[in-house]
């Protein structure tokens, strides 16, 4: 394991501290319990947005704290959900009285910890709504399992719900638009290499030189199928097809196409994947109206990518275009 770190157990502490120093104009970082808050929080009259999860997915979530997106982010240990004693103060810090939306990726740990924090916050008089993100088509959705994971769609939920909160939507409306994004977004990922959790010290799984893992999650957890290496176009087709069919996209619809890097894959390769995906969508009569390409929700240094497609309507498009000013996503301001 070769990493630019000091003590493997201090990785999150030191990284978040550095993040706070680099973005002191946008965010305030609290060390213990650890959470990151928008500089001007709570914003009077505005619904607060809090997300969080295990660390190792940077820029998610801390990188999305700021105008037009999250009010607070709660980083757990690497790949480990944060705890209620972090989520609660973050929630209280961003509550202006208009209530707080928790954006939670659907993992047992995240769900349980946010659930507890929500109960505690409600006990303190804060109205809470929870938007659960579960966009990963690699996982079969079922009442009898933990259900689909939240992956790339999370970034889009945070941006669009964040814009709704910023324009003054009330608590239920912000939660509703978050849910609407979640219902219209699907993702699927691939790993070319594994990643190494600093405190674990060795890779989360082993891929042979000629193997890739289709349907990878963002925690170095294994995917659904392991197949021999293919070229970029073939891999892209494997990721895109289930996304499009699960969404039931048809000719004439407009989408946002998001090609996300897992952390260790160069941007040039993401554009090769984007090219194929855009061509395939075009061939099906689907218009790519908005695009996002880059490392936005990662798995440490994993090589690979995910493809996320969001069915757009006019309101979601306008909210996507609305100004955002965070460490990792910025436009219109």
């Amino acid at each position: 394991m070769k990493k630019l770190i000091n003590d493997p157990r201090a990785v999150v502490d030191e990284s978040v501290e550095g993040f706070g120093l680099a973005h002191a104009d946008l965010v305030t970082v609290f060390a213990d319990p650890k959470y990151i808050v928008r500089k001007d929080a709570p914003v009077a009259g505005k619904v607060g947005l809090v997300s969080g999860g295990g660390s190792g997915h940077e820029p998610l979530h801390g990188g999305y704290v700021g105008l037009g997106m999250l009010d607070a982010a709660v980083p757990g240990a690497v790949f480990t959900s944060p705890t209620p004693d972090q989520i609660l103060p973050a929630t209280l810090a961003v509550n202006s009285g208009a209530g707080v939306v928790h954006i939670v990726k659907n993992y047992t740990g995240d769900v349980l910890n946010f659930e507890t924090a929500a109960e505690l916050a409600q006990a303190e008089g804060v109205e809470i709504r929870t938007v659960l993100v579960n966009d990963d088509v690699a996982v079969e959705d079922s009442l009898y399992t933990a259900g689909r994971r939240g992956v790339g769609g999370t970034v889009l939920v945070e941006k669009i719900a964040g814009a709704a909160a910023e324009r003054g939507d009330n608590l239920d409306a912000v939660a509703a638009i978050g849910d609407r994004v979640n219902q219209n977004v699907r993702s699927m990922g691939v790993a070319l290499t594994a990643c190494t959790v600093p405190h674990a010290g060795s890779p989360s799984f082993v891929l042979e030189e000629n193997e890739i893992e289709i349907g990878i999650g963002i925690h170095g957890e294994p995917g659904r199928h392991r197949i021999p290496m293919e070229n970029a176009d073939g891999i892209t087709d494997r990721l895109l097809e289930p996304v499009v069919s699960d969404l039931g996209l048809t000719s004439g619809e407009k989408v946002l196409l998001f090609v996300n890097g897992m952390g260790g894959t160069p941007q040039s390769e993401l554009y090769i994947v984007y090219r194929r995906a855009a061509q395939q969508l075009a061939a099906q009569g689907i218009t790519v109206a908005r695009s996002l390409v880059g490392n936005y929700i990662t798995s440490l240094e994993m090589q690979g990518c995910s493809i996320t497609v969001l069915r757009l309507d006019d309101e979601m498009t306008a909210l996507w275009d609305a100004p955002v000013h965070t460490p990792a996503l910025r436009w219109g301001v």
Partner: protein
Amino acid sequence: MLPSTPLRSAGASDVGLDVNWALRWLTLSAEAMAEHREELIELDRPIGDSDHGENMDRGFKAVMVKIAEAPPETAGAALKLTAMTLMSKVGGAAGPLYGTAFLRAATALGEAADIDAATLASAFQAARDGIVARGKAESGDKTMVDAWTPAVDAAATAAGDSDVHKVLVAAAEAAEAGAVSTDPMLARKGRASYLGERSIGHRDPGAVSTALILRAAVGAAE
């Protein structure tokens, strides 16, 4: 894989369990988590995200610090402190689940200075029920419930003899067997469930940590 702690032949069958037992239990649990940290990480690697040992070790280390700062005066208080600490330090799925388990057990123990066999068995039952209430896993879903449920059943049966030591041993042995029983299961809850068929053939890390903790409870009574 599980350590088989050599058992002293049960002697003081009429002796109850007190706060010192609870503190020894937590101390031995912390030692077990530290000692088995790697093993739990390795179990979590193929069907999870390689953090269970790290999470549990971090959590129980924090419990030790808390106990040293303000030593609790009853077994119930010790378990409640443990619950709050695990809840805030473990994270992941295991944190809220174990947190709830210890919280419910603490409530079941109440202020009792001396825990008898029936109270002990009902505390285990409360712990298990708390986990099920939070995590909604059923038996056979390949989770820590598959260690807790047989442990609770065995404890209830053993409690008939009114011997706390027998209750502890029965629970630990059943939990250990329960952990082993998860090997062939197909996971339907937690992170391992994403793997579908590929989860088969691996032991559930949370079931193993449960067995370790219940085994520590035996050691604390020796």
